[in-house]
């Protein structure tokens, strides 16, 4: 199915250190997105530079250094989420990049509040808890960067029954495919 997409989500070091991983995962699971890949990793500067390669051009050297400092500060939890129009939906759940502008109900709106202006003054990357792929193209590249093929799984879950499949014969099949152990 063409509309089913995969996207990359990172719980950044500030989110991991604040113990928000469980809460964040829960939000994506609640809307019916499937976690098809997950790992905790602590990346080095080389890897971080690859991940943020476009920031240098878009925002300049200063911001690039700041975000690099943030992503290498501690371990991150990297996730691949799968669902209908996942890229757009995940971005909606995360909220806009600037926590100050993010509405309550979004991850950034609920768990952070600082502004770009403040982070400029203190010369720090804005700690906005999560990173998510911006476009389908970006999602594809980022998933390839963070995950090997064998680290991404394809499996049946309850969401296949309740959200994705509506035909009776499919539902029956899917129910039988769910393990109880």
């Amino acid at each position, binding site marked *: 199915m063409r509309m089913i997409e995969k996207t990359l989500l990172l719980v950044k070091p500030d989110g991991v250190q604040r113990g928000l991983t469980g809460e964040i995962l829960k939000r994506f*699971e609640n809307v019916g997105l499937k976690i098809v890949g*997950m790992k905790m990793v602590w990346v080095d500067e080389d890897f971080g530079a690859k991940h943020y390669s476009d920031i240098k051009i878009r925002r300049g050297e200063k911001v690039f250094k700041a975000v690099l400092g943030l992503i290498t500060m501690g371990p991150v939890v990297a996730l691949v989420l799968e669902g209908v129009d996942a890229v757009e939906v995940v971005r909606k759940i995360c909220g806009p990049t600037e926590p100050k502008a993010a509405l309550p109900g979004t991850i950034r709106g609920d768990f952070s509040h600082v502004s770009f202006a403040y982070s400029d003054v203190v010369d720090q990357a804005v700690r906005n808890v999560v990173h998510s792929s911006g476009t389908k193209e970006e999602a594809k590249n980022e998933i390839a960067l963070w995950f090997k093929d064998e680290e991404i799984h394809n499996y049946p879950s309850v969401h296949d029954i309740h959200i994705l499949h509506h035909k009776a014969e499919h539902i029956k099949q899917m129910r039988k495919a769910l393990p109880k152990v």
Partner: protein
Amino acid sequence: MLLIIAKPSAIAQNMLGKIIQSIEKEGLVVAGMKMQSIDIHYLQNKLNREKREEAKAQIILAKKVPAVLIAAYGENESKASKKLEEEYKWKLHVSQNEEVAKYEIARFFKVEEIFEYEKNGLGKAFEKEQNGIKFWSENKTRSVEEIEKESKKAKK
């Protein structure tokens, strides 16, 4: 350090977020985590031993769904391990005691997949030499078979 496995049933039910929250609520810090299919190591052995047809069918289903392996540490591990098992029953595997945990973590995690970091401003809570972590950092190049052999020897 404990090994906690969110089993295929928990993953298929989309309970991972809730499980991680419970782990952190018990005062444990997640030091390593990965989604991995555990059929080769764990379920295949179980399948070979199992005689009941119904249970066999369940294991075959479970092999198609990945599990999430979590290495977590904290001050009150034994209490946390009991509480987690009580709450989630068969959806979760938690190491029974420290000895078992050492063996289990060595089996599923490489040393570079476990991280020591500061959480919630509480400071770093474990030393690499403590809690059996030195045990597997020395032995990271050993294969699963070698670890199994040694554990059998130790039991004798």
